[in-house]
Each structure stands twice: as structure tokens, then as C-alpha cells.
């Protein structure tokens, strides 16, 4: 198993590739089927953002270890226009997922850890992590 998998995101076909790779990478860690779907969905959302707003970027998938739990790390980065009002974009309307139409608050809810850095004119980098629950 490679240390990390880079998936260039250019078009919507790449979105499917990214989430399938993510699912495949996470599967052996003992995630439940439901968790794998959450991971794939989160990848789909951030990848879609790249295609919609930045036109081009990449998703880097890798594994991580922390205090004897294993998890998957997803980094989504692009050199797009950046997000001017990050707080607004990350606003979590619980029952209405309007925001700015970005699936970011949603993706955040699906993952265990979520960090976003964005600079207007520079681009955006998102780091998301999900840890496999230890089965007894």
C-alpha cells in the first residue's frame, strides 16, 4: 500500500475516482460501511468544490496513526480564487444546508477533524481526518 495517493482533480470524473480511492484506502482500517460512505461523501464534496470554484486541484489520501488508533487523512488543495469569508462559508445551518452552496459545513460534519485554510488569490487547503473506532 502506497504511503499516499494523489488524485488530480480536473473534472467531475476525477471526483468519482477520488472517492473510490478514498473508500479503498480506508476499507482495511476497520471502518464500518456507514463510515466508509461518510468518507466517500466528504471527499466527493470537497472535490466538487475544487471543480466548481478552482477548476483544478488535487486530493491527497493517506493513512495516519495516533495513540494506537488508525485513520485516514484527506487533503484537498487548489490554487483557486480562495474563499473571502471563511466564517460565512463554514456556517452550519443545521436544518438548511444553504451557506454559499459549498458542501464544506456538510463535509465537516461527516469527518472527525476538519481544518481549512484559504487565501484570496492564493487558493484553499482543506485537511480532514476520520479515525476508525476500535472494535473490541
Amino acid at each position, binding site marked *: 500500500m502506497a504511503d499516499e495517493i494523489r488524485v488530480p482533480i480536473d473534472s467531475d470524473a476525477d471526483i468519482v475516482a477520488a472517492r473510490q480511492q478514498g473508500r479503498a484506502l480506508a476499507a482495511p482500517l476497520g471502518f464500518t460501511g456507514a463510515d466508509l460512505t461518510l468518507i466517500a461523501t466528504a471527499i466527493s464534496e470537497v472535490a466538487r468544490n475544487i471543480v466548481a470554484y478552482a477548476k483544478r486541484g488535487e486530493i491527497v489520501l493517506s493513512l495516519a496513526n495516533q495513540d494506537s488508533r488508525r485513520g485516514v487523512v484527506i487533503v484537498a488543495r487548489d490554487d483557486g480564487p480562495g474563499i473571502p469569508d471563511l466564517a460565512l462559508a463554514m456556517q452550519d445551518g443545521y*436544518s438548511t444546508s444553504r451557506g454559499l452552496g459549498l458542501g464544506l459545513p456538510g463535509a465537516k460534519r461527516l469527518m472527525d477533524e476538519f481544518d481549512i485554510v484559504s487565501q484570496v488569490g492564493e487558493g484553499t487547503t482543506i485537511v480532514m481526518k476520520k479515525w476508525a473506532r476500535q472494535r*473490541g
Partner: protein
Amino acid sequence: MTDQSKKTSRTESAGALVPELVAHLREKQEPLRRQWVEQMTAKGLLAGLTPEEAETESATIYDTCVRCLETGQYDGAQAYATRMAERGILRAMTSEQVLGGFLTLRDVYGRSLFARYQGDLARLSAALDVYEPVANKILSIVALAFIEERTKVIQQQQEAIRELSTPVLQLREGLLMLPVIGMIDTQRARQLTEGLLCAIRANRARVVVMDITGVAAVDSKVANHLLQTVQAARLMGATVIVTGVSAAVAQALVAIGVDLTRLDTLSDLQSGIDEADRRLGYKVIKGEETAARHEHIEGR
């Protein structure tokens, strides 16, 4: 002697001390090991072990510890602790037994060092400097393995409790009932939802009566969990009727601002089931008619 030279002479003698201590403990293996077993027996720490088991295990442990001192590597101790945990041995023993046993061994080793170096305080001090970190490290390894094993057991039990407390029952064809009882945290809400969704698929259910009479406290978080459960069920084609909404809960839901047009609620379980029947096209016929029908059929 200055502090600096005291330190260097200590490190130098430490290097020479290790083999000396190891040789001492190996030489004294039998008497010390027996002493250890006697002390453990006196404290009642070997209850549940046969004398043969006590003999073999104590010999293995003694040897493993001396090896740690000799090599400075703790793989042996770690492997032993892991093996004990995996074999469930730690599960069958009390914390008193496990820790007590190792604490006793630590004392037995310690006392033997005192006995050996009693004439020379400087050497004794040096010997303890070498010995104590090793003894403490081994103890931590054992203690942590024990704690981890216990934690695993607790998690398994919690999992079992969770599963027991959220059964999904099929009332009739197409109708499921989900009695929700107790505290709903995120973890439980998730389990509840997953269980319900799988049951909807397995039973091809079209209506679910979710009774929340037994839910401990309904705050905005719990309300949202329940709402999400209802929404997820609906995506699978099943309507959820929430029953057991007390006056207090109703007030809480309204205060929270839950969109009630999205929620089908009724105050009691029976009403919920009646409504479910109605939607599914079921009619419950009273007993007399059924008896009459039976007679009719038999009379043919």
C-alpha cells in the same frame, strides 16, 4: 567530589553495576523467587492459580524481568504482558492480584539489593539508581496492559448494552416499532438510526412508530438526532410517527424551533399504532367476528 564528577563516576559504575546486579539476581533466583511466591500466597494474591501454574509463571516473570535489566530492552516484558492480556488471564484476575504480584516482586528484588549492599551506602545508592527505573518501567507495562484489557471489556459491554436497548420490532408486515429508552448521545443516536434503517430494508417497512416516552431528556441535540433519524428513514420510503411526546417535550421542541411540519407526532403509542395501521390499510377486527369466521370455515 563535585556534582559533575559524582555524576560521571555514577554513570561509570552504573555501567559496571548492571552485570553485577544481573549476576546477583540470577544467582539468587531460587530463594528470591520462592520468597516472592510465599509473600504472594500470604497476601492471597495467588488465589485461582494451581501451585504448578504459580511455579511456572513466577519463574517466567522473574527471568523476563532480569532480562530487561540485563539488556535494557523491554520487548520481553511487553510481549509477556500482551500475551497475558490476550489469553484473558488478566481478565480473570483482580487488579489487586496483578499489581500486587508485581509490586511484591519489586520489593523482593529491592530488599535483596539492600541486603547485599548494606555495608556500602554509595554502592547501594548506585545499585538502586540502576534498578529502580527498570522495575518501574516493567510495572508500567504490566499496569497499562491490564488497564487496556479492562477498557476493552468495558467497551464491549457498553456496545452490548447499546444494542440491547434499541431493538427494532416488527409489529405487522410493513410496520416497525422502535421504543427509544434512556439517554440519547451522538453515538447512541447513530446506532439507533443505523439499526432502524437496516430494519426498514430487511422488513420492507413503510411505517415506523418511534416511541420516545422513555427518552431521558430532550434538548436541542437530542431533538436534532431524532429529526435526522426521521429524515433518513423517509429517504428509504418509510414514514416515522413519533409517539410519546409529553407536554414538556412538546414545549421543548417548539422552543427549540424544530420544524414541526416535518414531524408526525402523537401523544401516545396506541394512537401511533392506530395511525400506522390506517396508513398501511390494516383493519383490526374484534375477536367475536374471528371466532364466528372460524366456525364458518370448520362447518364446511
